[in-house]
């Protein structure tokens, strides 16, 4: 004889029963419930009806030419990536600048693009850059190993902060972060201002000397300024910026004790 509470639990197994996902003893228990309860039989029939409705939904075709455009676009991106190796091409720049002083900051957008293109080519490094072993820095001040489809490839100690390269298998990416708020008036002409959940942001599309289209996205990220540069979609840029440690919540809090290498390396006042 089952109790009402046991029956309630069995009612919750009706979907799994219908899907053939119960073990023998559970299935037997539900069989018993169905024998003695008209309500259970009705509910099972209802579940089956709804399940059939969902399973009966027809396939949906993408708009005409959708995949063809994607394939063409991918081919183009792949070609650009190859071209980048030999010259200066689009890539992605993630720069993380750490300073305990909040200031108004205008990221050197053009210069960052050049540096990041140089790093993306994997053939050279700016003279004032120094590689950082991100895995050996307690992870507290470094950009995360992954950001969505992007994987961190390298991190550098840059004059203004930290410069990290990511790659999603299509094109390398970088991020640049500086303490302070964006000095919007000091950004190059041609960009577009926007807001993201209360944070101001700025975006500009540029073309590198090799002809690759490059997005530059600058945004406030807590008390930091994050600049993302590279060939990417807008959502990729936002995803990368979003994945960065958010200062004030974790990054700066951990900077004091765990990231002396950043402060010392960058020469910022403490």
């Amino acid at each position, binding site marked *: 004889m089952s109790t009402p509470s046991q029956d309630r639990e069995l009612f919750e197994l009706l979907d799994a029963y219908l899907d053939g996902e119960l073990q023998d003893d559970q299935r037997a228990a539900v069989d018993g419930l169905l024998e003695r309860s008209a309500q259970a039989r009705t509910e099972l029939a209802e579940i089956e009806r709804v399940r059939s409705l969902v399973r009966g939904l027809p*396939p949906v075709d993408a*708009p005409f030419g959708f*995949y063809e455009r994607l394939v063409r676009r991918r081919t183009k991106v792949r070609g650009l990536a190859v071209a980048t190796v030999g010259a200066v091409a689009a890539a992605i720049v993630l720069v993380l600048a750490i300073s305990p002083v909040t200031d108004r900051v205008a990221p050197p957008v053009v210069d960052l693009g050049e540096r990041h293109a140089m790093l993306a080519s994997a053939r050279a490094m700016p003279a004032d850059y120094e590689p950082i072993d991100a895995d050996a820095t307690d992870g507290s001040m470094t950009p995360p190993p992954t950001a969505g489809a992007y994987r961190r490839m390298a991190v550098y100690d840059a004059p203004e902060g930290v410069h990290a390269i990511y790659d*999603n298998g299509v094109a390398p990416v970088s991020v640049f972060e500086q303490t302070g708020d964006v000095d919007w008036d000091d950004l190059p002409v041609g960009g577009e201002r926007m807001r993201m959940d209360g944070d101001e942001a700025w975006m500009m599309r540029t073309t590198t000397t090799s002809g690759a289209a490059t997005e530059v996205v600058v945004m406030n990220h807590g008390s930091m300024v994050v600049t993302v540069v590279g060939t990417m*979609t807008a959502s990729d840029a936002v995803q990368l910026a979003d994945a960065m440690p958010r200062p004030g919540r974790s990054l700066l809090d951990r900077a004091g004790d765990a990231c002396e290498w950043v402060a010392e390396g960058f020469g910022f006042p403490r």
Partner: protein
Amino acid sequence: MPDQPDETPSWEQVAREHGQFLYTVAYRLTGNHEDAQDLVQDVLLRVQRGLATYQPGSLHGWLGRITTNAFLDDVRRRKRRPVEPLADDAERVVPGAPSADEAMDQANLPQHVQDALLQLPADYRAAVVLCDVVGLEYQEIADSLGIPVGTVRSRIHRGRAQLREVLA
């Protein structure tokens, strides 16, 4: 449409030969063509990276898992930070006005079922879609979403219960 290729398919094969399945799952999760196209683009990027480690087996199961996880990632990201479009970009595959075919598709869809799906919380919707659209078993769904099988069972039960209420 072969679901279990003997060899690792190329990116183009996935896009061309399994595009309808991929798009169907994306559309069931997002409920509109614009977001479905964005999701498919995201998925194909992940597919490209994952092809090197793809183990021949149920390609649709694999694609369904990637699609659902990309969808849930996007849902979480939007919760943290609602995103406005950065800019019109001809290079991006941004949908324009619905084509005649697209409009006809929408008109022919059992829209009330799709609408009911969209009323489910994203986690429930993902479990139901993986089960009833992709056709994964509970253990596969659990592995895909990184949750216990009991949670999968619960989400499917509650998801379908909400569907029953909406579709009553």
